[in-house]
């Protein structure tokens, strides 16, 4: 896509910047303003949270292995589902994407670093505090938040424990972190693109992240407003969500989902960018329909503000509103379809090879599409009355978030790991990781569709006997998927510590500025801006 010419005279302007090396030890990580260090911190933090949230999922699956209450009691079960959701959304998926943005955006657009490095440091370092507060609330008297990650009022206001205050403050900190991260991405992309890197020459990962960043800035303040209203309803006598004081509990859901639906796309648009980077590389063929990919991503982002109430069809909306939200939701299938068709067209008549990143990207395309199709089914309001709040929904959003967002993050890690570390990862172990994950994740989530259609509600600690066999099977899939991720850690550790030396281009078909830098890249990416032709 681009070729680089380095201007030798430009070096003089950047005296000693590219000479200084980072301080050693803990100080390096605490004080760092370097996009690569911060990217690494974000990614390691996300991985840690992935395992903590995963451990909670294991508790849930162990309790649901058999009917009856055996391991945990109902209130603790609710805390597990709640905190699992919060950790995975705000602690695993979002920071992982921010980590990838930090590492990759400056390298992809030919910049030396992110535009706002000190803010970058701060936006990462407040996250561990946010999650410490959230996790600490589990050890309070009465336990942690147990009202679901969607914290519907009045369950989260009048009827919740005092852990709600900690929950609210930790969500505030997560929101501040996300907004700062988003501002940084936008400022970097607008100001630090190399000469010649016009908008329609930007890699799709940069495009999708730019749109994601605008979504974040639009909706994270809405979430902050929602949690604040919960806080004041609970502690300061307001009645935003209490009919007795002139409020409305359904108002909560409108505000929450006005944040919540764009949030769903915040967690999937960067994934589209990753897959659009990987598929052309391993098909050795340019991405099909680059421009339509950009337009499709923008349309999805705009539509995401018009569909929030499809999460609320059973709340008793007027028929007109139900029809409006049904039609808008169905419409999202069009740009999403365009993306999937473009990926398939990119593979068509290419010369494909199937290294681990490509395997995860291919699995993403198939399994994300399954999640998209069940999403289309959920859009049909009359049918949604039957699907809503059952395991069918649980299956749907785990297909989109686990085999969608998380598979794309894993694909990205394998794809850029040789660039980051300078070493090739162990291909055999990586393939083991892929196949174990693929089989177990489908054992885990596919049967949930049937359990949901057969009538099992979500968020219940115990269930009727006809669901027993399927739940046992699902739990086995869950444990297997959890264990499979340990292979990933093994691959990562092995690759960071050593391995076959990676070339600058790493992959035969890879194109883009990040592949022109040596592997590993210098501490400051492009001290001299490259010229993109």
């Amino acid at each position: 896509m681009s070729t680089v010419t380095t201007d030798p005279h430009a070096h003089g302007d950047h005296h000693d910047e590219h000479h200084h090396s980072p301080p050693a030890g803990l100080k390096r990580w605490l004080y760092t303003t370097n996009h690569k260090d911060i990217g690494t911190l974000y990614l390691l933090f996300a991985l840690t949270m992935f395992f903590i949230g995963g451990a909670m999922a294991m508790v849930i699956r162990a309790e649901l292995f058999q009917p009856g209450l055996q391991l945990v009691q109902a209130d603790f079960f609710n805390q597990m589902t709640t905190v699992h959701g919060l950790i995975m959304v705000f602690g695993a998926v979002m920071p992982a994407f921010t980590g990838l943005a930090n590492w990759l955006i400056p390298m992809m657009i030919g910049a030396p670093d992110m535009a706002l490095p000190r803010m970058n440091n701060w936006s990462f370092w407040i996250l561990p505090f946010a999650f410490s507060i959230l996790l600490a609330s589990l050890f309070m008297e009465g336990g942690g938040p147990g009202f679901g990650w969607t914290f519907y009022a009045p369950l989260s206001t009048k009827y919740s424990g005092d852990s709600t205050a900690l929950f609210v403050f930790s969500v505030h900190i997560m929101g501040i972190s996300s907004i700062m991260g988003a501002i940084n991405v936008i400022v970097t992309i607008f100001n630090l693109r190399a000469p010649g890197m016009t908008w329609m020459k930007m890699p799709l990962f940069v495009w999708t992240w730019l749109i994601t960043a605008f979504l974040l800035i639009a909706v994270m303040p809405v979430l902050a407003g929602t949690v604040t209203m919960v806080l004041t309803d609970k502690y300061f006598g307001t009645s935003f969500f209490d009919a007795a004081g002139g409020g409305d509990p359904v108002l909560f859901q409108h505000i929450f989902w006005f944040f919540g639906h764009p949030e769903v796309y915040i967690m999937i648009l960067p994934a589209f960018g990753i897959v659009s980077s990987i598929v052309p590389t391993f098909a050795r063929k340019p991405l099909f329909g680059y421009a339509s990919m950009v337009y499709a991503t923008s349309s999805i982002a705009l539509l995401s503000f018009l569909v929030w109430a499809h999460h609320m069809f059973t709340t008793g909306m007027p028929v007109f509103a139900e029809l409006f939200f049904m039609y808008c939701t169905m419409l999202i299938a069009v740009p999403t379809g365009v993306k999937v068709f473009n990926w398939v067209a990119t593979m068509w008549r290419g010369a494909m090879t199937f290294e681990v990143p490509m395997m995860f990207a291919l699995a993403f395309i198939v399994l994300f599409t399954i999640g998209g199709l069940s999403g289309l089914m959920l859009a049909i309001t009359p049918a949604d009355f039957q699907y809503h709040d059952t395991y069918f929904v649980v299956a749907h959003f785990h297909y989109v978030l686990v085999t969608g967002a998380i598979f794309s993050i894993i694909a990205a890690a394998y794809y850029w790991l040789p660039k980051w570390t300078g070493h090739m990862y162990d291909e055999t172990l990586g393939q083991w990781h892929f196949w174990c994950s693929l089989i177990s994740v489908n054992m885990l989530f596919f049967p949930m569709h049937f359990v949901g259609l057969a009538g099992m509600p979500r968020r219940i600690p115990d269930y009727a006997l006809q669901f027993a066999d399927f739940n046992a099977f699902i739990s086995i899939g869950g444990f297997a998927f959890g264990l499979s991720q340990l292979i990933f850690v093994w691959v990562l550790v092995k690759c960071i510590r050593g391995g076959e030396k990676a070339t600058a281009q790493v992959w035969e078909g890879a194109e883009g500025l990040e592949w022109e830098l040596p592997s590993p890249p210098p501490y400051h990416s492009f001290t001299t801006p490259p010229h993109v032709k």
Partner: protein
Amino acid sequence: MAKTSRYRCTLLSLLFVETATAAELPLNMTKGVTDISLQVYDLHMTIFYICCAIGLVVFGAMFWAIIHHRKAKGVQPAQFHESTKVEILWTAIPVVILVIMAIPATKTLIAMEDTSDSDVTILVTGSQWKWHYKYLDYPVEYYSLLATPQKQIQNKIAKGENYLLEVDRPLVIPTGKKVRFLMTSDDVIHSWWVPAFAVKKDANPGYINESWANVNEPGIYRGQCAELCGKDHGFMPVVVIAKEPAEFDSWIRQEAETQAKAKAAEQELLSMNMTMAEAMALGEKTYLGYCAACHQPGGQGLPGAFPALKGSKMATTATELAAHIDIVLNGKSGTAMQAFGKQLTLQEIAAVITYERNAWDNNTGDLVQAAAIHAAKTGNKE
């Protein structure tokens, strides 16, 4: 639910034959027993088949490429990367498919939301964690609680056939009549769901939602609360018995009579006194049914969530007796403590307060009678 197994969809069951035969799990959405639920089922199957067809085409093309267009076969990659014609085509085709899907969906939705001209109206009120049914056309109302014993849930005895899907008093409705349900809640949001009727509607505190069903076949239909409503969300099932209209009429007449008699009897009971043993026996039964979910069977509560009664100031000091009666009758606003005045009889309230003041070493020796509760209740009204 076992009823619905005969409707299992052949295509889906092919995928999971072995597991499906072991349990009685229906693998698909129920066709239900109303015209609307059948329409919803047909809609569900139509979209499902369309999605399968789309999946087949897209994944078919993808796997064709994976098999034939691989480097190992020595192919040279093509370099094409756009085609406006193709892109317009695969934008337009999905739009057409969506319109085809939207037409029947719109029709069904409009029919589902038309609650006019109903024959029977029932007010359904959710509260943590039970349902209350009130027939607006008859002087009949009652609570419906989970009937599965705690011992089954705690795995101490074998689980029954309808484990977690059984209640003490099911809702009874007539077949062949348009029954309108009005949903509301006393505390948090609940959601009243009967799959066989394709009715799932949130019960929002302070607001009233509507839904309806016209059931074609007599039978017992089971469902559950579908909206997370706190600790025992998984333990508030819905059971509906649909009876032929004549049978329903005789049932409701008898029920109205029984309830009128009970009310009259309660007035008589005011002058009668329970012995300590009677009060403790009735109190224990009532406590385990209504109070133990939060305050726990041993009265120790759940620290931080639900206060202990064992050794508490309110349940052990004589001066707090009036406050004790008040909180059980009227609840405590801003907390999960409900008003039990309308849920329990005067005698039950007297007994449960007696029980709370004497069980678990509270040993106050206080014996509260129905008359005292009646006095507190009528005193409140003035």
